[in-house]
């Protein structure tokens, strides 16, 4: 598997008219956007705007009510796509299997699909854990880990499938600033190393503007704008400006002139 990573390329995604309702409440109201192969595409938006639901559609966990999602031009529902392209999602909570150790979690994909003998799997697991800065934690149980460590294990678990598309759901929430930098670096590093396509959902403006090739701002299931970080920053739409500022900066008050953003 490692041998193939040199000529491995990220996949492109096209989303057309994507709509989804839950119990009569429309969560995604017609989304259209493209993600180019190998790019880091960041989606920002307030809580409840449908970001997680969107990611679930992109990896086939939810079926759209209307519209379509194409991976390299093929509809995501077609069985070929799932077997042909390797895609991984890093869930917001990590979603580690609580009954398995860290090492078993990370090696689960290789083990269940019988892709390597156990000794080889152990070696690859150690390597991936090292990548996310958690060397030697194989025997810990998820319940012994902090939120940030869980998230890094989840990233290691995603990396082990050598994905062509990684979806990150709020990868730096719950992380201390240092770990957040490690994650941001890793997202960039993966793009350079294996040209993986990354789709990052985040509130973290440092992360978003730091790693993004392009940013989409979504609100209430609609896209407000898509563009490079510079374009988005200068976008005239008051909603976008309001979101970028209101969501991330405290209004200055006379008593808190030097306060840090939360």
């Amino acid at each position: 598997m490692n041998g193939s990573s040199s000529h491995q390329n990220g996949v492109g995604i096209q989303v057309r008219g994507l709509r989804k309702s839950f119990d009569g409440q429309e969560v995604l109201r017609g989304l259209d956007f493209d993600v180019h192969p190998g790019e880091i595409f960041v989606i920002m938006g307030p809580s409840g705007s449908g970001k997680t639901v969107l990611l679930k559609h992109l990896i086939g966990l939810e079926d759209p009510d209307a519209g379509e999602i194409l991976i390299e031009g093929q509809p995501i529902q077609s069985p070929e796509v799932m077997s042909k392209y390797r895609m991984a999602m890093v869930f917001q909570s990590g979603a580690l299997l609580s009954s398995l150790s860290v090492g078993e979690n990370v090696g689960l994909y290789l083990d269940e699909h019988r892709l390597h003998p156990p000794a080889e799997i152990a070696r690859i697991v150690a390597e991936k854990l090292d990548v996310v800065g958690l060397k030697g934690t194989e025997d810990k149980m998820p319940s012994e880990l902090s939120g940030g460590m869980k998230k890094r294990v989840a990233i290691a678990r995603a990396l082990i499938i050598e994905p062509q598309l990684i979806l990150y759901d709020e990868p730096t929430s719950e992380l201390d600033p240092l770990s957040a930098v490690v994650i941001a670096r890793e997202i960039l590093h993966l793009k350079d190393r294996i040209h993986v396509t990354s789709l990052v959902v985040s509130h973290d403006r440092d992360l978003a503007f730091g790693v993004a090739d392009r940013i989409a701002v979504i609100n209430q299931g609609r896209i407000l704008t898509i563009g490079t970080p510079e374009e988005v920053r200068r976008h005239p739409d008051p909603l976008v400006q309001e979101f970028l500022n209101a969501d991330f900066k405290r209004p200055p008050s006379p008593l808190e002139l030097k306060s840090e953003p939360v």
Partner: protein
Amino acid sequence: MFQNIGEMVLLFWRTLLALPLTWRQRRKVLDQFFEIGNASLLTVCILSFFTGGVIALQTGPLLVERGLGSYVGGVVGYSIAKELAPMMMAILIAGRIGSAMAAEIGSMRIYQEIDALRTMNISPIHYLVLPRLVAIALALPLLVTIAILGGWLGGLVVCAANDHIAVSSAAFFSALRSAVDVQDVANGVFKSFMFALIIGVVSCHQGLTTRGGPRGIGRSVTKAVVNSIIIIVIFDYLLTRILMT
């Protein structure tokens, strides 16, 4: 609860189709099997021994009074093997193991572990349902066999020890042998096999369809146990009726 029967039948069918993968999942099957055994063996022994004992205690004096003492062994042996052991063990296992299955799978669902499995192309049916269903289908008949023997032993001990009955072990045993065929025991064990499938399918289905956070897990557990028992009781009547002919 009955609107889900279609879904449960489908789940059962898809698990049956996955049966050839059982060997791959053998470690998980064994884990589940021993978990069921560890959780239940002692309870099964106590429950069955005292049930056999109490049946002997209830029927023994009545029969002895009427000069039918030689039938006590038959009454205890027959009722334990064909009805009491399979039924009581099924209810016990629904409460102990069915609830655990629904809770475990339900919490995996709530905490998105099942979504994570699916993104890795790992079928929850292969990974979660198959090992549990195979394990319970093997374990419950075994536990029921043990319960039948335990119940007989309880009856035998009470008959010999109680002054109002005073039927010797040898008399009890020969009455039992003349009244109970191997076929009767096989019927009881077969019923328990069907009950095991019901508990496994109902509980896994409840787990997989859990919704609404931690409270949803509680609801799933309750429903898994109650629905299992209701379906078992109905099936018990139908199976008994079918096996009579």
